[in-house]
Each structure stands twice: as C-alpha cells, then as structure tokens.
C-alpha cells in the first residue's frame, strides 16, 4: 500500500531540512553573503544616517533577493545528479506536491534565516521600530515567493553547465513585483503611512506563486528528466 500524500510530502520536506542541517556551512554561507552585501553599501555610499534610512529597505531587499539566488543550486541539482529526483518523479504522489515540499524545506533553511537576521541589519541602517517589524513581515511574505519562483529557474536549468549564472538571469526579472512591494511596504512604514496595501499585494503574489509555481517547476523537472 502506498503511503499517503501528507506523510510523503512531510517525509520529503524533513529529509531536505535534515540534509541542510547536516551541511551547516551551506545555510551559514547564504546568511553570511546576505550580511556582507548589506554591510558593503554603507561603505560605498557613506555613513550618513539620513541616507542610510532612505536606502535601507531597498538595500536589504536587494541583498535578500541576491542571497536567495545563491541557495537555489542545492534545491534540486544534487538530487538530480544522484538520481533521487527521478525516484521522486516516479512516486505515485503528484510531483507538484513533492516539489512543494522540497521548496518549503528550502525556504525553511535558506529564506527563514534571512528573515530572522534582517531586523539586526535594519538596525544598522537606522530603521525605527515600526519599519523594522514591517521589514520582518514583508520578508516573511516575500521570501517564499522568491523560493517558489527560483524553483522554476532551478528546474529549468537542471544539468546545464552554466546553471549557476543562468538561474539569476531567468529568475531576477520575474521577482521585480516582489521587490517593489516588499521594499515599498518598509518605505511606507518608515514614512508613517500604512504598509497594509503593500503587504496585501505581497500576500496575493504569494498565493498566486504557491498555486502556480510548483506546477510549472514540476513540468520543468519532467522536461529535464526526459
């Protein structure tokens, strides 16, 4: 008898989380990259608090965007190389659901750490209390979208030589709306306006991406496995 859909997806997700936790340096590297990129900006544009306050939301969001591109290599490539992905595709459970589990595990180990450390970096950019909490919420809503869109790029480039360079090229233009609404929410909060419209739009993007992206990524995985 086949195990149920829920237990299979949980098994795939917990396997990926466990693998990531055993290779702590992978998780740490993404996080370090995020911190270093965010620290480079004050060095290049100058330390004036007023300037940093206006730049902060945008810089932190761009840094999170770039950092989330880094981890996409390990989302599917290792499983593709050793044949695990083929076994997953052969499973009786729908491939889209299993890919969703992999994406969720990927977000837990690469997106969530970014979200948690972002307020600390926000303090370096002199963001005030409310802007900081909005930054946290916007990243919490936005980084899953980045992982979902990134999964499509990662699946399309499976097994290609130039995959590492190609993925950001394919995915970054698609993430423009996330960047706009994510940074916009923090901007609005810093200016004393309501961030709710931005956050609602971010949540709408997340709902759309959760629905469509695993499906497109599953189609791309099948193409790569043919």
């Amino acid at each position, binding site marked *: 008898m086949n195990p149920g859909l829920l237990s299979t997806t949980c098994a795939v997700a917990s396997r990926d989380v466990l693998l990531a936790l055993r290779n702590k340096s992978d998780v740490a590297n993404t996080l370090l990259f995020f911190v270093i990129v965010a620290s480079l900006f004050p060095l290049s544009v100058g330390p004036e608090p007023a300037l940093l306050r206006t730049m902060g939301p945008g810089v932190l969001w761009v840094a999170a965007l770039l950092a989330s591109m880094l981890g996409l290599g390990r989302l599917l490539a290792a499983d593709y190389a050793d044949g695990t992905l083929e076994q997953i595709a052969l499973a009786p459970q729908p491939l889209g659901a299993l890919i969703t589990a992999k994406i969720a595990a990927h977000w837990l180990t690469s997106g969530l750490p970014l979200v948690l450390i972002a307020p600390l970096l926000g303090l370096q950019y002199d963001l005030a209390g409310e802007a900081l909490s909005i930054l946290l919420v916007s990243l919490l809503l936005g980084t899953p979208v980045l992982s979902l869109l990134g999964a499509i790029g990662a699946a399309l480039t499976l097994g290609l030589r130039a995959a590492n360079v190609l993925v950001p090229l394919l995915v970054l233009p698609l993430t*423009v709306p996330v960047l706009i609404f994510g940074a916009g929410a923090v901007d609005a909060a810093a200016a004393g306006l309501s961030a709710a419209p931005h956050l609602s739009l971010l949540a709408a993007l997340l709902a759309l991406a959760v629905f469509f992206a695993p499906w497109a990524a599953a189609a791309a995985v099948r193409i790569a496995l043919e």
Partner: protein
Amino acid sequence: MNWFRYSSPQTFYPLAGKMVPWFLAAAAVLAVYGLYVGFFVAPTDFQQGESYRIIFIHVPAAWMSMFIYVVMAFWAGIGLAFNTRLSSMMATALAPTGALMTFIALWTGSLWGRPTWGTWWVWDARLTSELILLFLYFGFMSLQAAIDEPRRADKAGAVLALVGVVNVPIIYFSVQWWNTLHQGASVSLTKSPTMAATMLTGMLVMALAFWMYSIAASLIRVRAIILERERNSDWVKTL
C-alpha cells in the same frame, strides 16, 4: 485545403521560402510610404516640434515588442502541448526579433526623451517595464542557447515563456504603482488629446511595415533553424 499539411518542417520550408520575398517587399513599400507620410506630410507638433517624428519608429516598435512576446509564448505553448516541432521552432525564431524591437523602442525612446524631457532615461513605468521585457527576452534566448538538446531547449523555453507571459501584466502594474507611489508624475507622457489624422496614418502604416518586417525576419530565421535541425534528413540532402 488541409492547413496541417504545412505544420511539418519539410512542407513548411519551401512555403516559407515563397512567402519571404512578399513580406519583405510589403515591408519595404509600407516603410517608404509610412516614412514619407511621417516626414513630409504630417504637420509639425506645436508642443514638441520636429522631435515628435520619432514616434513613427518608436510606437510601432513598442507595440511589436509586446505583441511578439505573446505570439512567441503562444507558439511555445502550442509546441509544448501538442509536441509539434515547427511551433517550437517558430517561438525560437521570434525571440531575437522581439528583443530587437524592444531594444529599438528603448533606444528611440531615449533619443526622444533627451530633447523633450531633457534626460536620456527616467524611471518611468513604461520605460522600466520595457526594460524588464528585454531581460525576459534575453532570459528566454540564453536558456535555449544553454541547452544542447533541441527538443529539451524547446520545452524548457516554452515553460519559461509561459511563466513570463503570466508575469508580464503583474510586472507592468507593479511597476506602474511603484512609479506613482514613489515620485508622482514628474514627467507626463500624455500627448495632446487629438492626434492629426496624417500622424495617425503614418504611425499605422509604419506599424504595418514593422509587422511585415517581423514576419519576414522570423520566417527567414525559422528556415535556417529547420535546416540546422533537419540536416540529417533525406529531404534536406536533396535540396
């Protein structure tokens, strides 16, 4: 008449060969007439002077840039759904023309912006979304170029083009809202509400010319792709 007869590369290749000269000739005639209307018949704009005449290139190119992306995604989707080789080849052949049109639209827009707005580039909603469209074309082309096996390149490109076509309206509206939220309308693209009839004629004729050119260019390119992919088949050897 059975139209599906021409869905095979072998029968489409000679048909495309016969059509190319006609589309090229139509493009040339329409372009000459459209440019004549645009440069000699259409009146000078009372606000923008002579510099407005770049719209006879700029607007058709901008229209084509967006339209070709949709057509490309359509053919790519057909190729993915029905596993038809020719449709995917058509999508691949359309991409460079679409990217060229996007580039022309950005370039001429920049040339027009310098005398009119006093700057080469503004982060206006339309410019920004056109720039992102150019990135989408580049992504499609570089993905296909990176995959050695043609059928996988077709299908992977199709998934990317379809994801892109869903995203284009989202990107467009988000950029528009971003622009209005950030800086308000510091520069406005709104022209005088009524356009002289000759200006409109010139623009529409030029748009037709761009259509004909795009069709001819993609047919020439699809012929080359057919030859490249079918080089080991018997009918190519007897050409």
